[in-house]
């Protein structure tokens, strides 16, 4: 086996030195009836070229060569080459959590830089080293708000990613946290009147997403004012980190839960991604996850350590702020390098490109007389909701024939939007692709036999 660095003779020598006759003597503590005396029924050992072929053939059975307008929490952006060149350095790739600070300063300094950049981007005062992803990060943020306020009710906007909401339900159910749902108005934003009416003295927090699941930018200052009047915390979840290049940061929030997949991380069929939590400094000690802090060594030199670990499970056990241990360090490093490559000017320019492409796509694709844009009175980032007379499955089938993956049908989560699809355009979407999709959408209307006027 090519990963095992021992010759048969060396194994024999070692067994002799240990003083046993054979390897199975070292497994004697496993009761005989539970020893596996046969080969595992898994594929036989493959050569490296066979492994590569196996996965190439899998890759070929996926959607290669298609134009895609999918977003909805996983976004296609360009990944600068230097990111992969750097994260594949073994010193980053094959090291562990930096508990031994003297020999992990590289990882630690990079985390410190990551935390700083996240603070700058989100307008928060502190950020952690990462969470699993945006969905679990949002759930952890709600639990954090419950600890901070000592209240037990969470109000969640219906415009938060439906799968984030499902994860929150799973997390909250045994924490004694009750959940209320906030509807959206004609403009696709949180209904402020409904919010005001729903808030009570028991409300620990309000969770909104901005840009929300429909791509609409929420009115964060207005929401914050209403939420804070009742002494609740405002949590803003951001699924598209690049929006922060053009959209003002949610500084009025108490906790921000960000998904940083857009920052140089492959979509990879849904993971690994990179959640991160940022907050006001006064809530620091209730924040879950690892934190990296600056300090000095014995000779006064600057260095970095994991700190405030008394919040964490390995010290506090059942009283910890969370059970999280492993996080997403390498993915956070990708995001850090991405933010460095684009930097202060580039993230803004990139965000403006996304804005321009989506603006063009929204106008062009909704131009046919069978289609119209929903929620277009409020500002959008790079996603938009298209209402069509043709039902979404029919429309998408026609697009697929042209090797185009159209918008995501929303009826699965929003029965009232059974004829609506969620479209996304990024800097990688070309005018030609948009024009092509627009022509198919326009023709689909003509071809659809049971066209319903939207």
């Amino acid at each position: 086996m090519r990963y095992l660095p021992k010759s048969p003779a060396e194994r024999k020598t070692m067994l002799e030195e240990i003083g046993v006759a054979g390897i199975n003597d070292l497994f004697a503590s496993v009761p005989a009836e539970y020893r596996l005396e046969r080969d595992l029924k898994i594929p036989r050992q493959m050569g490296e070229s066979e492994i590569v072929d196996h996965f190439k053939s899998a890759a070929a059975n996926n959607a290669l060569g298609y134009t895609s307008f999918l977003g909805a929490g996983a976004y296609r952006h360009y990944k600068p080459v230097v990111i992969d060149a750097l994260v594949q350095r073994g010193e980053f790739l094959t090291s562990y959590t930096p508990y031994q600070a003297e020999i992990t300063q590289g990882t630690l300094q990079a985390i410190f830089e990551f935390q700083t950049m996240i603070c700058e981007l989100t307008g928060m005062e502190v950020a952690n080293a990462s969470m699993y992803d945006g969905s679990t990060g949002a759930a952890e943020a709600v639990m954090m708000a419950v600890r901070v306020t000592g209240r037990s009710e969470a109000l969640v906007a219906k415009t938060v990613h439906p799968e984030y909401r499902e994860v929150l339900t799973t997390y909250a159910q045994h924490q004694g946290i009750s959940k209320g749902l906030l509807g959206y108005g004609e403009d696709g934003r949180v209904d402020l009147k409904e919010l005001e009416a729903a808030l009570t003295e028991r409300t620990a927090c309000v969770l909104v997403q901005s840009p929300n699941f429909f791509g609409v930018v929420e009115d964060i200052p207005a929401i914050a004012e209403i939420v804070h009047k009742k002494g609740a915390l405002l949590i803003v979840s951001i699924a598209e980190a690049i929006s922060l290049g053009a959209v003002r940061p949610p500084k009025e929030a108490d906790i921000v839960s960000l998904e940083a997949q857009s920052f140089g991380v492959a979509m990879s069929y849904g993971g690994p991604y990179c959640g991160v939590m940022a907050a006001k400094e006064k809530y620091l000690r209730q924040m879950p996850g690892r934190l990296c802090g600056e300090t000095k060594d014995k000779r006064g030199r600057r260095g970095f350590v994991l700190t405030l670990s008394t919040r964490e499970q390995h010290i506090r056990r059942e009283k910890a702020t969370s059970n999280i241990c492993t996080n997403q360090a390498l993915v956070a490093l990708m995001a850090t390098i991405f933010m460095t490559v684009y930097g202060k000017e580039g993230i803004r320019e990139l965000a403006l490109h996304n804005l321009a492409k989506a603006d063009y796509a929204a106008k062009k694709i909704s131009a046919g007389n069978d289609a119209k844009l929903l929620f277009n009175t409020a500002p959008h980032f790079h996603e938009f909701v298209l209402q069509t007379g043709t039902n979404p499955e029919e429309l998408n089938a026609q697009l697929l024939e042209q090797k185009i993956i159209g918008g995501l049908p929303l009826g699965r989560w929003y029965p009232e939007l059974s004829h609506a699809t969620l479209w996304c355009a990024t800097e990688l979407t070309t005018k030609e692709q948009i024009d092509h999709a627009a022509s198919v959408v326009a023709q689909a209307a003509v071809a659809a036999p049971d066209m319903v006027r939207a």
Partner: protein
Amino acid sequence: MATTVIDAELEQASFVGTRHKVSAHLTQNEALIFEKSSPGKKAYRLPPLDVPEVDATALLGDAAREDLGYLPELSEIEIIRHFTRLSTWNYAIDLGMYPLGSCTMKYNPRVNEMVSRLEGIAEAHPYQPESLSQGSLRIIKLLQQCLIEITGMDTITMQPAAGAHGEFTGILLTRAYHQSQGSARRKIIVPDSAHGTNPATAALCGYEVENLASNAHGMVDVARLAQLVTDETAALMLTNPSTIGVFESEIHKIAEVLHAKGALLYMDGANMNALVGKTRPGDFGVDVMHLNLHKTFSTPHGGGGPGSGPVACKKILEPFLPTPVVVEGADGMLRFDYDRPESIGRVRMFYGNFGMFVRALAYILANGPDGLRQTTEDAVLNANYIRKKLEGYYELPYPTPSMHEVVFSDRKQQARGLKTGDLAKRLIDYGFHPYTVSFPLIVPGALMIEPTESESKEELDLFIDAMQQIAREAEENPELVRGAPHSTRISKLDETTAARKPVLRWKPSA
């Protein structure tokens, strides 16, 4: 210059014996990225816009952003150097043995990285049509089949993002099962030797944690367990082999005691590297368990993640698995089934850390049944070899036979005022990453050493030599050990101040 001279002198004075593995070496100094930034530098260039430009303020109104604060501005070469320099300050498996007990720091094969980056795999969108995702779904399906066979369980979910997340999922499954039997029950029993995530998980799932003291051998005290288990016990969370690296040879009795009261046996699979191909948890009575793909199945630790923590379980728990699950249609097409009325719900968006599934499957294919068995045997061989060579130098608190890791204590060195943490830091001067310090909690002053199968005899001998020399230094020059490490870029850091006055981000100097 003065510092360099001091460093060299220190190097001369710092060893009683000889370092065989490492020599002094210069590393580059490097400021924080923000301190290197200057306005107008760029490391990117976007293509020209092929659609009309937009006015952000016109589109976004009050929501438009003015400024991105202190995000850095640098050129590409500076970025390459910055992160490359930082990388050289890290120790890594690629540099040498990384004997962190319970972390299974094994070789991370490069072909895994290569295949996970193939375009059709890396660029797959989670919502692209299932008909255009058959490649991804086949990968999930085959990996699931392999993991079910390896664990001896009946079914599996791939959704959890890491080990602790898998524990959370497994205990929620347990809870849902009991609920379906009439009552969720109140308590989870956790041995005092358990990893901290176990009690934290039980609490997160709304359970009371009941502590189970280990017996004189550091193992589950079956008689005591039998007294603790009642019809309010939901499960025992057991790590097997235990955190002292010992197989619970009374595992069948443990399972019987639990099952007799309707409680379940949860296994923390952190130490699965001692079992693969040699014995199967499903055969010895485990009902539900998580795996750590980043431990046993070679996906990279990456400085602390991403991980992946699939949960395998018996048939009785299948109705409760997180949604969605992968199913095969009559036409041979794979798809996701979302219609699972008894499911515990989702624990993560989409389907889990798919990129880690690709790597783990590549590892399994590279090994096959014979390779996986040999891997386990070598991991156990290495730990026992270290144990044999060091048992005269360090106290072995439990003489029970070791599997894939060995736990010593610092009792002998305590006589010289040295603790496990001091000895660990001294290992750094010999060119090794320390072992796991002060864990498990049942061994005061624990040195928890897990070599994994990835170490050659030569590397093991270097490690053994270093540990033996440190034991000698502890006798002859304890001060030298206490001040370690002496040869790193920075010396011991002031963690107290870091926690008391947290500085968690860079700020420009006023």
